[in-house]
Structure formats: C-alpha cells, structure tokens
C-alpha cells in the first residue's frame, strides 16, 4: 500500500491513473446532481417560513462548504509540496485553486440572491459573508501570484507559502470579523436557522454536497493532467503520451 502510494506520487504514473478515474467521478457527479435536484425540488417540502426561496440552500450551502474545504485541501497540498518537495502536490494545489474560487463565487452569488427576499438586502456586512468575500480575495491572490511567476518551481513554492499564510489567516479573519460584528450589533440581522431542518432537506443538501465533491474531483483531475503535461513536456513519457493521444 505504502509502496503504491509512493508510486502514484510520481507525475508519470499519476497521469494515466487520473485519466482513468476522472470520467467515473464525472459520471458520479452527474448522477448525484440529478438525485439531489430531484430530492431538493420534488421531495423536500416547502419551508413554512421562507416559502420556496429556501431551495437555494441546496446549492448555497454545498458551495460554501466546498469553498472552505477546497482551500484547506489546497493549503495541505501546498504544504506537502513545500516540505517534501513533491512536484505532484504542487500541481494539485495549482489545479484546485480555480475550482475553489468558483465555488466561493457561487456561494456569494447564491447567498446574495437568497438574502434579497429573506433580509431585504443583497448584502450585509455580516461575519460569515465578509469572511467568505475575503476568502475569494485569498484565492485570487494565489492564482495571480502563480500567474505572475514564470519559473514553475518558484511559482509552486512561492504560492505554496502564500497558501499556508492564508490558511493561518482564515481562522483569524473568521473570528475577528465575528468579533467586530457582535460588538457593534448593526441592523440586527442574524442568520435565522428557521425550523429544524426536515430530514429530506438535509439529505438533499448532503447529496448535493457529494455531487459537488465528485464534480471537483473530476475537474481537478483533468486539470492536473494538463498541468503535468505542460510541466513535463520535455520528458520522454510525455512525448509518447502525446503521440498516442493525439492520434
């Protein structure tokens, strides 16, 4: 097992593995999305307080969770790459960032669209909302730094360090923003949790989260394959792959 793991941490052997796995995750994502949507729209009951608008929850919460979780995974890979100098983990960190930023944006967007009917405002400077916005900035900083450095080794290491700094900063931001907010209770808007969540709602939300997970894995595996090809384009095995796969 340990040996296997070691083997697949080399880009050359991870590349075909990722290629074999990605489609399966794609299919799983599609199936789970269909199930989740069916549960969310046709099985879950209407919320007695929020009406139908609450159905945004089935993408909002999974996206919000994913946005934070992907950042952690990204920072983990970045740290791994820095400490053990493994190329593959740096590729993974790089491949995760755009998808993470995408989910952050989706959670902001759906949150705003939910906030208007529920709170009467597209946006309030609430702790959760603000820290999610800052998370988006952190993703953008990571992506921009990587884009600005030409040397791939330096790019990987510098942005890896940035991801780690950001990971330390995320909890600090989260708590500081919360603090700042509770001290000055503003328009007295708080996240109303509503009634205890119906079991079907919870199931639908979890299924959608799983679907987003599968989607993320599929996209990231495909993207990491591109990274590998690009970075290792001068090695012999890429030449073989290229002549095989373009045929």
């Amino acid at each position, binding site marked *: 097992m340990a040996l296997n793991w070691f083997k697949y941490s080399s880009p050359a052997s991870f590349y075909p593995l990722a290629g074999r796995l990605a489609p399966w995750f794609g299919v799983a994502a599609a199936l789970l999305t269909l199930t989740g949507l069916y549960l969310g729209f046709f099985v879950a009951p209407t919320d007695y307080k929020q009406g139908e608008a609450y159905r945004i929850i089935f993408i909002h919460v999974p996206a919000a969770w994913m946005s934070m979780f992907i950042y952690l995974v990204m920072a983990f890979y970045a740290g791994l790459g820095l400490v053990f100098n493994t190329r593959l983990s740096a590729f993974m960190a790089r491949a995760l960032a755009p998808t993470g930023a995408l989910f952050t944006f989706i959670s902001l967007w759906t949150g705003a669209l939910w906030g208007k009917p529920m709170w009467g405002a597209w*946006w309030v*400077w609430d702790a959760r909302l603000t820290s999610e916005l800052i998370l988006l*900035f952190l993703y953008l900083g990571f992506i*921009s730094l990587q884009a600005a450095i030409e040397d791939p080794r330096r790019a990987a290491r510098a942005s890896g360090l940035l991801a780690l700094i950001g990971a330390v900063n995320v909890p600090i931001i989260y708590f500081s923003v919360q603090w700042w907010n509770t001290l*000055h209770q*503003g*328009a007295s808007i708080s996240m109303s949790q509503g009634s205890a969540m119906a079991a079907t709602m919870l199931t639908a939300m979890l299924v959608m989260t799983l679907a987003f997970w599968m989607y993320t894995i599929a996209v990231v595996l495909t993207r990491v394959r591109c990274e590998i090809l690009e970075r290792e384009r001068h090695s012999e095995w890429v030449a073989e792959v290229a002549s095989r796969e373009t045929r």
Partner: protein
Amino acid sequence: MEMSGIGLLSGTRNILARDLTLAGRRITDVLTTLFFFVIVVSLFPLGVGPEMNTLRMIAPGILWVAALLATMLSLGRLFTADYIDGTLEQMLLSPQPLSLIVLGKVAAHWLVTGAPLVLMSPLLGLQFGLGGAALGVLMLTLLIGTPVLSLVGAMGAALTLGLRGGGALISLLVLPLYIPVLIFGAGAVEAVASGLEAGAHLSLLGALLVLALCFGPWVTAAALRISLE
C-alpha cells in the same frame, strides 16, 4: 479637409487598438486594478463598522476615493513601458500630432482601467445598500468622471516619467488635481441618495470632462516632450 480629419483620427485609433491588444496580452494587469478597487472598497466597512445606515451615507465618497486611488495606481504603467522600450520616442518623432496619439493612449487606459470600475460600481454600491436611483447616478458620474481622472493622470504620469520616486511622487502631483472631480462626483450621488437633484453637479462634472478633453492631451504632449528632452 475630410481626408486629414480621417487621418488624424486614424492616428488615435491605431494607438488605441495597439494599447488594447497589449492590455489583452497582460490581462492580469487589467484585473489587478479592478481587484484593488474592489478590495479597497471592501476595506472600509471593516474599518467603519457594519451599520448599513452609516455605510449608505458614506458610500459615494468611499467608492469615489477608491476609484481615484485605483486609477492613480495604474498611471505608472501608462507611459513607462513605451518609455523604456523606446516606443515613446518614436511617437514623439511621428508626423502625427502627439496630442492625438496621447488621446489614443488615454482612451485605451480608460477602457482598461476606468470602464471596468464603472461596470463594477453598481455591485459594490449594492453592498452598501444604495438604492436604484443612486446606483444609476453613481454609474453615470463614474462614467463622466473616470475619463477625467485618466486625462489628468496622464499629465502627472508624463511629468514624472523616468524619475526615481515616480510611483509616490505621482500621487502627490495628481491627487490634488483630482479633488474637484471627487467633490462633484460624490456630491451628485449623495444628492440623489438623499432625494435631491443632481443636475448641477452633473453638469459641472461634464464641464470638467470637456475641459480635460480639450487641454489634457495637449498638456500631456508638452510634458512628454519635456520629460524626453
């Protein structure tokens, strides 16, 4: 007459097209200005506190100051690249009037930095709880005002070209000149937000634009000639 008119404009248009192409190649430069704007605007609620009423009141001022700062930070790039690689010198030697070439460069600068700010502003305005009318006027004032910022900033950029402390120096030169734009721009939005008429502010802003359009490129051209002496 006709012919030369077309010829003149074509000089402007060529430079405009070239600069836009270049901006397309360095899309990150474009995005950083926009990000800077967004981040600076988002910093204020964190400093000032989350009460929507206060925020709504100061929103026009904050958005305008942020636009000013974002434009200012992007000025460094306006002529420097062309100066370093000698293109600017060639422009000075061009038989087309330098002020029209400058106009092309400024237009490209505005399209790349000012226009995105204008498009982004309603979203940020929403975050500060501005209403529909105020949002409209905010966009309108930025639409009229940011070209003035680019035109005036170009003068500063031309004057500080190639100087060592350029980046910081330019802010000292340009920010005071930006003050009228800031006052009328933010004033118009505030007026509308508190239910008043903004006509007077807007026409003064328009007058500033006309003034800047007439004299800006010409002054910038003169400043460039001095800097490259």
